């Protein structure tokens, strides 16, 4: 138990059979991605481009109300899904379409194959459809001797390369134009043995697009059947809606005599007003467009000269494949709100490093981590579900407002419940919510860590290190936990006239209690300076977030119950101060859900605690009201690393920056809100990714010319400081409380 006591299981535990099958291959593929300079370049361009363009697209719009409208319209649709399906079918069939419904991927492939055979089809043109990817339609058609041509440019490129899409909206975004040019050359789309070969190097994007357009035009002409997806299906009129930019979707739907539209049951909506909600957000969030160039609304069978009847043979195929299961699953139902804009990949720090082939099975990005489990089963999700830092960037950007990280944690819990929990994690789940066991375990760890400089990796307990995990130095367990020294010494003496309205009880969180207690003392000192009296209730335990991220839901619930007893009681402390943004955000947002099944009184306690928990920056600024006169301002340039759980979790962005400015020269730097790559157990499970994310972060900070990096979450401090130590300590890394404490003006 000693190793990894705080943040996760030890690497030995990992390797001694604790890892899911296939994890080794997964790591290999991640390493490959990380060391591919072309991929890294393409992903980096994509990330920065998306980030810069999105705010423009939503300018002047009330994003919150747009999101709310999408959620309400999706929820209304889902709660009457069967009725919608019946209505859609009736209306679409009355206009000459044939409507089908398939329970699973296999029956859906069968059906589409049968439609092709009935119509004597030997060539198909296809426009991009994630649903077709989901059921692996192309291989099935090709095995039956039917040629399938993707016609969406990106999708066609990956088809030529024998790859799958790496993004739901931009399937070939992992490639540079030079790689595309090479692919075109190899597939004889351009060049060819006889003609002059255009140089692959430096080929203009426009020339590539022109080449593709010319090569694909005859395929439309020759195909007997077009397969498309659809972005929505409207029950009131039996209409399907297809959004494209290239114009390939409408060609696929128009030229061949047969049109098969394949879509998930979740695409059903009542009517045009619902589609309008979707049209307002989908293109904006996907590609920062106000609208896609084409929106085709197809209601039943149109006239079609290629069909013997003179009417298009239109088959609309709805796929269930697990969707009605998600519908009945309150914890994950929100997954069905997804409009497939792909934005949750665009902002994801993990996606930015490794791309979609490692960050998805078929569906990509955060939503893929969740959907894979339901649509493709536990085996497909087993490794994927762990590849998430829990940073919340996806949740923040999702236009359907889906709480994606919580769904990822939920999937982890289910994987654990179904597949068993490795020994190390089982122990952790016993120890974390129990303060006596936790203290005892850490004492053992402290002894094992030995007097300074124990042999090799032992020095770096409790987050055991070896191999890849050595990308950052990690702190030793403190000689004395905060709780022990507080018990002995009590709060620091109040320096000013006591002001009980400033008083606060400390919620330490395990990182501060056991690893970085000096930061808590710094905070207590700052509070005392203004006349606040600090207390420390001894009954508190770990907040439970580390357990939740490891899929140990039971332990997370027990930890929450223990803490709300202490901090949520009616006569409990009215203000609870924590220096850990992750604890604060977990307590504020997840506790009430975690204890939801526990009765009204417990829920009330959780709600009270959620209301009482206060992050240090907000406390220092709004409660202590620190001002310039409290500080001896330092001339050092101090940059800010904004922790994900601070900015995205708590919505606190200005207070820390203002406070830094009081104590030092605040130096704004690019991407202050870029994740540091810690994520607790994430950095142990995916050290290669964590290291890559960290190195980008530190590179930016060093280049900006900062002396000091200030942050306000212990995980970030540990990660950044450890990374800097490895890189040669160019920067001082410290908690906001420490900066404030060391620049505090002496009283008197």
């Amino acid at each position, binding site marked *: 138990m000693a190793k990894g006591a705080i943040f996760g299981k030890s690497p030995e535990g990992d390797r001694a059979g604790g890892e899911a099958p296939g994890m080794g291959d997964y790591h290999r593929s991640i390493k490959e991605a990380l060391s591919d300079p072309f991929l890294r370049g393409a992903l980096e361009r*994509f990330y920065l*481009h998306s980030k810069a363009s999105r705010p423009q697209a939503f*300018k*002047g*719009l009330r994003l919150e*109300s*747009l999101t709310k*409208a999408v959620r309400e319209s999706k929820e209304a649709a889902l709660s009457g899904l069967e009725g919608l399906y019946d209505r859609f079918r009736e209306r679409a069939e009355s*206009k000459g379409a044939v409507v089908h419904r398939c329970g699973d991927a296999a029956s859906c492939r069968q059906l589409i194959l049968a439609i092709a055979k009935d119509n004597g089809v030997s060539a198909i043109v296809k426009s991009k459809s994630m649903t077709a990817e989901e059921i692996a339609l192309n291989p099935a058609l090709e095995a039956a001797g039917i040629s399938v041509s993707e*016609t969406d*440019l*990106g999708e066609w*490129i990956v088809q030529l390369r024998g790859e799958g899409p790496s993004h739901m909206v*931009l*399937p*070939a*975004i992992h*490639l*540079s*134009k030079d790689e*595309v040019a090479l692919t075109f050359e190899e597939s004889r789309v351009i060049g060819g043995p006889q003609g002059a070969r255009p140089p692959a190097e430096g080929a203009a*994007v*426009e020339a590539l*697009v022109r080449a593709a*357009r010319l090569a*694909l*035009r*005859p395929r*439309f*002409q020759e195909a007997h059947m077009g397969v498309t997806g659809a972005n929505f299906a409207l029950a009131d*009129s039996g*209409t399907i809606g297809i959004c494209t930019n*290239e*114009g*390939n979707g*409408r*060609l696929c*739907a*128009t*030229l061949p005599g047969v049109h098969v539209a394949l879509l998930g049951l979740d695409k059903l909506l009542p*009517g*045009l007003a619902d589609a*309008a909600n979707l*049209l*307002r957000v989908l293109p904006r969030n996907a590609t920062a*467009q*106000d*609208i*896609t*160039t*084409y*929106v*085709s*609304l*197809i*209601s039943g069978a*149109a*006239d*079609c000269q*290629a069909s013997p009847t003179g009417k298009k043979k239109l088959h609309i195929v709805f796929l269930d494949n697990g969707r009605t299961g998600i519908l009945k699953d309150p914890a994950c139902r929100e997954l069905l709100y997804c409009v497939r804009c792909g934005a949750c990949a665009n902002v994801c720090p993990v996606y930015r490093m490794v791309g979609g082939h490692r960050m998805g099975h078929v569906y990509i990005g955060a939503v893929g981590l969740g959907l894979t489990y339901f649509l493709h089963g536990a085996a497909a999700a087993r490794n994927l579900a762990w590849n998430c830092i829990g940073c919340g960037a996806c949740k923040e950007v999702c236009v359907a407002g889906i709480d994606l990280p919580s769904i990822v944690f939920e999937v982890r819990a289910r994987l654990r419940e179904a597949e068993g929990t490795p020994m190390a994690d089982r122990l952790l789940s016993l120890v974390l919510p129990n303060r006596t066991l936790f203290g005892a375990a850490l004492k053992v760890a402290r002894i094992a860590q030995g007097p300074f400089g124990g042999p090799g990796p032992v020095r770096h307990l409790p987050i055991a290190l070896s191999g890849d995990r050595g990308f950052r130095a990690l702190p030793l367990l403190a000689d004395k936990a905060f709780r022990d020294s507080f018990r002995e010494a009590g709060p620091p003496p109040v320096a000013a006239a006591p002001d009980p309205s400033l008083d606060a009880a400390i919620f330490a969180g395990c990182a501060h209690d056991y690893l970085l207690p000096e930061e808590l003392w710094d905070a207590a000192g700052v509070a005392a300076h203004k006349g606040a009296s600090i207390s420390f209730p001894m009954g508190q335990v770990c907040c439970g977030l580390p357990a939740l991220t490891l899929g140990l839901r039971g332990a997370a619930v027990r930890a929450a119950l223990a803490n709300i007893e202490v901090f949520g009681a009616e006569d409990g402390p009215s203000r609870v101060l924590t220096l850990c943004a992750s604890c604060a955000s977990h307590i504020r947002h997840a506790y009430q859900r975690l204890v939801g099944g526990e009765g009204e009184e417990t829920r009330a306690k959780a709600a009270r605690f959620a209301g009482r928990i206060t992050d240090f920056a907000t406390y220092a600024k709004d409660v202590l009201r620190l001002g310039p006169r409290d500080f001896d301002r330092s001339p050092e340039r101090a940059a800010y690393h904004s922790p994900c759980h601070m900015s995205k979790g708590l919505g606190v962005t200005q207070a820390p920056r203002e406070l830094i400015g009081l104590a030092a020269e605040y130096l704004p730097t690019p991407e202050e809100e870029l994740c540091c790559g810690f994520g607790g157990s994430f950095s142990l499970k995916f050290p290669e990714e964590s290291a890559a994310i960290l190195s980008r972060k530190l590179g930016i900070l060093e280049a900006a010319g900062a002396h000091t990096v200030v942050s306000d979450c212990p995980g970030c401090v540990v990660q950044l400081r450890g990374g800097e130590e490895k890189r040669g300590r160019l920067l001082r890394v410290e908690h906001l409380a420490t900066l404030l404490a060391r620049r505090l003006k002496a009283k008197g």
Partner: protein
Amino acid sequence: MSQGQSAGAETNPVGLFTASAAKVSMGVSRTADLDGALAVALGLAQERLAQGPPQDGLDMLFLCGLPGALPEKYRALGAERGIRVIRDGLRAVRGWIGTAFSLASLAIAETATLVLSGEGEDARLSGMISLTHVIAVREEKILMALGDALPEVQAMMGRPGHVSFVSGPSRTADIERVLALGAHGPQRVQALVMGG
């Protein structure tokens, strides 16, 4: 239409439509009436023919669903200028035709969207396989926001067939997220506001 309204400074539909059109690389010009619109289309067809790239169909101008004697007038005018005015037969075209002319049922200013009822397969195809697509809309049929257009679009969806929203030339950003105009469909779309 409370949420989602663009907060652009433009308060009149044509102004907003024109501003939005610039964002999607779509040209906008004014003409008095249908006759004037067809004259513009013929001019653009000549431009397209001169521009190339050389291919079958480049000299074609497709006119759809127009009343009265106008198509005949422009067939004759076209012939004088080396432009073949056609009204059907697009399935036989293997590549692209030079120019297509369509009449939009209505337009949505906030996104520069032209709404085509797409009746008749040739009419629908013309917007997909033309290099230049000229779309005329009556000024009073330009509405400010998507929400304003819903009742009319709803009515159009009552009949079997397609309703198409077109906002600018076909495009792709699939390679390196670099925008390229003229993917499978038109490289150029010109909106003509008739009346006023």
